[in-house]
Every structure is written in C-alpha cells, then in structure tokens.
C-alpha cells in the first residue's frame, strides 16, 4: 500500500525499497516457502497409499464367567403342554430360563444388557419373520428383575427400520417395559476388524456391543438359501454396509459372525415358526404354531436343535459344521444336558 502512496503521477516509482523493506519481503517469501515445505514433508505419503491404522481384532465375548452348576440345563426346551389353555410366551421364556439356572446366573446387578431380537422385516408378528414381541418383552422383564441397570433392544433391519420396529410390535412391547429401543442410525456403525475367514473388516452396529451382557433372541425360521436359520444368522443384524455380498458364502459368514459374537445367553423364539418362504415370509399359511422357546448358551446347539423343528437336520446345514469344527459350540445337542420343561 505504501508503494501506491509513493507513486508518482505517471504511476511509476523510482525509489528503491528500503533495506528494511527488502528484508521483510524476502523474509515473508522464505517463510511461506519454508512453511509449505515443512507441511509437505509432514504429510508426505511416501509409499503412495496412506497406511490405515489397523486395530487388533478381538472377538466380543459376553459369556458368563460364573461356573454352571450341575443342576442347570445346558439346553432348555420349554414347550407348551397340551393341557395349557392359552400358552403364553412369558411363561415359556420364564420356564426355559429357569431351567438354565435363572436369569441371575447370567445377569449381574447394574449390568447394561443388550437384547438382540430379529427385527429384520416389515412383517407383522403373525407372519413369524421377526422375533415374537411377547418373547422379547418376557426377557426384558426377566433382565430388569435380575437387577440390570439398563436394557437396550436393537437390530439393524433389512426393510425401513422405523416400520420394522413399529410393525413387529417389538418397539411398543420393549419400550413399555422400560427398555431403551435404539434404531440403527447410520452414525452408530463403526468399521471394525473381525478377522473372520471372509468377514475381515465390516461396519458394526456398535450399540449391540457396548454392553456388559448380550442376549441373542432370534426367531426360528426357514431360510431359502441357508435352509434353516436362527441364532447364529441373527448376527447379520449387527452388520452395516452392503451385507448382500455375504450370500455368496453364507455358511462361512454365519460361522465367522458367531465366532466374533459370543452372547451371554441364547433364547430361540419358536412360538410360531415360518416353515417355507423364509426368511421374509409374509403368508400366514407358511407359518406353524409351535409354542416353543429354547434357551441355551451354545449358539451352535441352539441352531442344531432348532433345525429339527422345521424338519431339517444338522447334516444339511454346513454352517453348523464349520462352527462346530471351530469350537464355537457343539452341533450334537443331544450330548448336552437337555431339559424339557
């Protein structure tokens, strides 16, 4: 600006800049150059690709550390008795969990407990594509009675989650009992290393992992590709991103998930079972009332037993064998302490 003031009417200035001015101007130029050089060096990506920080993968193990007593079942099957006038999900869940040693065996005072039902589809309870809301409600009650501080119910749905949560009846049932029902909002997913055989890095619904205890509450149903699915496949509901690719190797991906997520307790809802056209269903004629609830800590055994409900057998379900061989559980459920109540 000072140059302008000094300018002669003809617009030229004959005076040379002062020494102070020269030092200042050269100094500014050098300073900007040095700054650019330092910044460039600091941010230099020498190898050509910014190396991503790789966190060490870790399975999420929520299994109860308390030793199981010999009285408690390892696989409890609560089936409505023929003389029961109106079989209630509440009573069946209670019987199954009691046979496992009661909810106190699994839930401690002050625990934050996540209940993970299947809320995958925009279907009504009668279509049996989602977990029965009464089963979820019964578990919320049991967990709260056992002294849990907070109960969270959540799933990453396939259809519009608002619609699935509402029309499955689970939102109202769980919210009414004081559970926190969390929608699978986009920002709740975080890319996590899973170190599975095919599931390497994947966006994970963090709400399902930020807990002290996790209860897996699937619905038993037919699945056109995997034939029968319930407990292990239910962990698809913790994945974000484009999980449609997983079908190309559905058996290994199910086993990967079950290895990554080890729940405190598994309660399989077989009150009404989708026998055909799974997993989405939509036709009441495809369902069958079974009034059964299965509780166990072994996801593999849960599915191996559950498959028999729709007339399937473990030998036809490769994911059971993969999981069994990896030691996630046993597919020979008969070898567990089974109790029918």
């Amino acid at each position, binding site marked *: 600006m000072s140059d302008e003031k000094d300018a002669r009417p003809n617009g030229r200035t004959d005076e040379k800049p002062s020494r102070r001015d020269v030092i200042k101007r050269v100094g500014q130029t050098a300073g900007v150059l040095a700054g650019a050089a330092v910044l460039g060096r600091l941010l230099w990506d020498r190898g050509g690709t910014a190396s991503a920080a790789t966190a060490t993968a870790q399975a999420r193990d929520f299994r109860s550390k308390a030793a199981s007593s010999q009285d408690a079942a390892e696989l409890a099957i609560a089936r409505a008795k023929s003389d029961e006038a109106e079989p209630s999900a509440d009573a069946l869940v209670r019987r199954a969990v009691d046979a496992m040693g009661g909810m106190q065996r699994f839930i401690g005072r002050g625990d934050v407990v996540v209940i993970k039902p299947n809320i995958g589809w925009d279907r009504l309870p009668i279509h049996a594509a989602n977990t029965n809301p009464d089963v979820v409600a019964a578990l919320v009650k049991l967990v709260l009675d056992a002294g849990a501080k907070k109960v969270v119910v959540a799933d990453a749905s396939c259809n519009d989650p608002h619609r699935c949560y509402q029309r499955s009846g689970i939102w109202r049932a769980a919210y009414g009992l004081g559970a926190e029902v969390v929608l699978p909002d986009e920002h709740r997913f975080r890319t996590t290393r899973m170190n599975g055989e095919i599931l390497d890095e994947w966006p994970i619904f963090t709400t399902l992992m930020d807990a002290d205890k996790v209860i897996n509450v699937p619905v038993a149903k037919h699945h056109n590709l995997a034939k029968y699915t319930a407990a292990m496949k239910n962990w698809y509901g913790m994945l974000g991103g484009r999980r449609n690719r997983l079908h190309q190797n559905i058996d290994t991906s199910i086993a990967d998930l079950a290895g990554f997520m080890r729940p405190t307790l598994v309660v399989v809802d077989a009150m009404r079972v989708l026998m055909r056209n799974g997993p989405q269903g*939509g036709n009441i004629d495809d369902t069958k009332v079974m009034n059964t609830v299965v509780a166990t800590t072994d996801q593999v055994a849960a599915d191996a037993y559950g498959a028999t409900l729709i007339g399937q057998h473990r030998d036809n379900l490769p994911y059971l064998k993969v999981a069994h061989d990896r030691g996630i559980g046993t597919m020979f459920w008969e070898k567990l302490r089974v109790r029918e109540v």
Partner: protein
Amino acid sequence: MKRPGSGIPARASIRALKWLRRASQIFFFALFMYFLLQTGFRGNFAAGSDAPVRLPYPVEAFLLANPFVSIMTVLSTHTVYRGLLWSLGLIALTLIVGRAFCGWICPFGALHHFFGWILPSRRGRGAARVEANKTHGRRQRIKYYIMVASLLGAVAGSAIGGMLDPICVAVRSIGLGVIPGTQYIMHRAFGAVENVPARAVQSAAGHAEDALAQAVWGSHQFYFHQTWLIVFLLVAVVFMNRFIPRFWCRVLCPLGALLGVFARFALFGMEKNHAKCTDCNLCLVHCQGADSPQGGVKWRQDECHMCLNCENACPEDVIKFRFLPNRKSAIREPDLQRRTLLATTAAGAAFIPATRIADSLDVNYHSKVIRPPGAVEERAFLERCIRCGECMKVCPNNALHPAMFEAGIEGLWTPILIPRIGYCEHSCVLCGQVCPTGAIQKITEKEKLGLGVAPVKIGTAFYDHGRCLPWAMQTPCIVCEEFCPTSPKAIWVEEVEAPVREKTPGPNGEPPAMKTVKLQRPHVDPSLCIGCGACEKVCPVQDQPAVYVTSVGESRSKTNVILLENTKYQSKS
C-alpha cells in the same frame, strides 16, 4: 421509536402490527420447517403392530393452501383435488387484505425478507437502496408473464408451473438439498470429532449425533439425483437479494403475481396524503414489494406485501393503511404489455405440445421413468404433478428422486424411482398421503398390496444373465429372492447342477479340473412382480445390477405393458 422530521411516532396499532408481522413470519417459517422435517415416517413406540403407518401432521398444508397450485390443476384437470379446497382461504385473505400472504405468511418470502435485510452490498444501502426499492415496471412484470405462461401450460395439460411456485421451490430446494446437505456436513464434522482420542469428546459428539438424528433428520443420510441444480437455483435467487431486495418475490414469483391479480379487490389498503410528503424516502428504504409507497406517485396495490413498514417509517403521516381507503392514489391492476402478454400466453400454450412431439410421451416409454405407487397414468400425472418434492422427502427408503430429463424436459423434477438407491417399501403408501394434487393417489395398504384387488405394479424386474452370480459365475446368491416381498414371491429359483472349473490348473500343466456345484438360479414371474425394486437394490453386483426394474408392466398404463393378461381394455375402460 422517534422518527426524524415531525418526531411523531407511528400509530400504536401500526407499531404493534409490525411486530405482529415479524412474529407471524417467524412462526410460519418455523412451522414450514417443522412440517418439512416431519415429512418422513419416524415410527411410533406407542403404535400397535397393525396400526396403519401415517404421518401425524398435515405436512403438505402450505401446498394445499396454495391457490396457484389449485388454479393450475383446475385448469388441467377441471377438478379441485381434495385438500386443495383450502386454497380458497388464501384467496379470501387476499380479497380482504391484499398480498398479506407474501409479507406475513409465505416462508419463502420470509427467507427473502431476511436475506434482503442481511445481504445488501455496500452499494445497496442508502440512496442506492431507495433506488432499488422504487417500482421497476419492466422487471416486476416478469412474474405476471411467468404466471400466465404457467396457467396456459396447465390448460395445455401440464402443471409445469410448479417448478417456480415458491412453496414448491422451498420444499424442493430445502428438503432435497439444504437439509441433506447440512446433515452430510454435520455427519462428517462429528465423524472427525469422534476420532479425537478423548472419551468425553467422543461421547459428547455421539450424543449430539443421536439427538440430531432423532429430532432433525432421521436415521440415514439421503441422496437426491442431480439435486445440485435445485440447490444452485435457490442460491442464485437468494444471492440476488444483494442487489435487488426480494428479487424473487418482486420479479419471479408466480404465486405473488396470482395474489396480485386478486389484490385489486382488497378491502384493506393505503391512503396517501401527498401534500404532507417531504420526499425523505424513509418509506422506500424499508419497502418490501417495491410498490411505490412514497408521496407524489400512485401506490401499486398489486405489488404491496402489506408489511406496513412504510407507515411505520413515515415521519409526516403521509401514509395511512385502513379499511376501505379511497382509491384516488392507488393503481390496483398490474400494468402489463399486451403484446408481451400475448406472446407469453402463446409460449405457455405451445411449450407443452412442443415437448410432447419430442417423443417423451405416447410413442416412447423411458425405461427409467418408474413412477411412485398410486401415480395416475402419465398424461394425468403430468397434469397434476407440481414437482414439489413432498413424495421424495417422505419416502422412507430414499427411493424417489427428482427426474432430470428422463421424463422429457417437461418432466424435470417429477418423481422417479431409482431402485439402485432405494426400493419401494412394500407396505408403504406415504407418497400418496403427502401428494397435494393427486398425481399420486391416496391409496390404502390393501390396494397397494393387492388384498382382494390387483396389486399396484410400478414396473417389472429383469435379469441380466451375463452378470448374475448363479447364472454367469456359478456362485450362490439369491439375495433378490430373499428380499422379494410379494407372497407368493415373484422371484422363484430353479435348482440346478452346473459345471464349474477349479481355480488351479491340474498337475503337469493340465487344464483345471471341472466339478459340479448345486445352484439356485433366480427367475422373475412377471405376472407377480410389482416392480418395487427391492431385488435391484440388494443385488450385490454393485455398479450395474444383475437384476433391474424398468417401467414396463406398470398398472397405471394400458399401453406400457408386456403381458396379455395385463391389457384389460374391457374391464378398465
């Protein structure tokens, strides 16, 4: 407030009314934004599982009260669709108090009022602002020509004027551009904050994101096809406030023009006492409509927004607003050039036939023009669709998008379904619920699903066997079949055993051995397919899916069909 000159403050009632106007503008803008944010299903923890899914508020209310929309659709369809009868209320208001809607209610007007106040350039203040606020006939006539051309376009069979209706512009640009854009920026910002290695900061950011997702935008980021153009036009008209305050309202707004036509009958208006005017121009400094409030010239009733700023500012009691004013110093009709008027009339009437000769209708069906469920037949659809974007905003799956030129230039910003981005949720009928003009009819879930009647079909799915995993790559998949929502499923699978080559060559350089794999290969039953696009959405072949939906077979059309059984001329007509 002490005024220069006489020093006598304005009448108490006028001062109170000015503040009431400001409150009204803020209230209606807030209401508009609230309705816009509520245009989407948020779920309800108290609702039972079989309660029908509906929105709790009449989120399209501003459009229903819009006489420009209703007159356009009356001209094109000769009926007043349902809630549009509310627009009589706004006509009644205008007949009593002139264009008070523009100054008191219009949310887009309030936006321009605000930016006209905050944005003027250095050269847009003082004398320059007085100059900018004087009536500029040539400029301000443009909106009347736009209105006339739109109405003639409607007569010719297209509600194309909705492109420039202020409420439509506001819903479209804010709903499809500003809100998702802000959400995107916020999500990025919070994502960066969540990477700060401090637990307290992370959880604060997480809670803020929870609150925003719940109270403001919902659970997922939405994207809208080519929405940059929509946002660019918004930015352009807002930026014009820097040079000409309320450029949009004075120059372009066809709704303002329409209300200006009715304003001539208004019972409330301005009287001037020219003798008292000292030419201080304080009225002009604050004028919104550029309607000549100053002494010495006649007031332009059709341009005035009834903001009452001029009387508030006048130090000499020149200006007085009252019921049944004398009309000595008022011009009540828009002054229009007859030739320009005739030319725009002709242009409006000729444009629609011209676009239709350009093969977008009747002879050529664009495969990507998949209209929302419940949309009426294409000609009737164009007669009704005002491109407001309500359906796109409400769609829970981000399936509906503003068309660029897929539906011809006439179909710019009309809704099309892009299944790759989102599919049509099977039990959802919300787009028809919010459509103010019946371009999408208010169908029930029963009608859509086809319980007791034929289901609503919006297209048909096709397989690209060259890209489909079980067909081309001998790899199991059938995600499409899993997501197919109809019962029985429109996608069925064929169990096959197919040869596949081993990955590694045999010993001694022999070619790789062959083995046999069991596969389920998907097929579409076109008589069951409803074109919802769930299969296309979930197809793992990411860039160009192996199953895709095109508009053929849509139940709204009698000609864009494949199957003989869907050509029920007898029963339909």
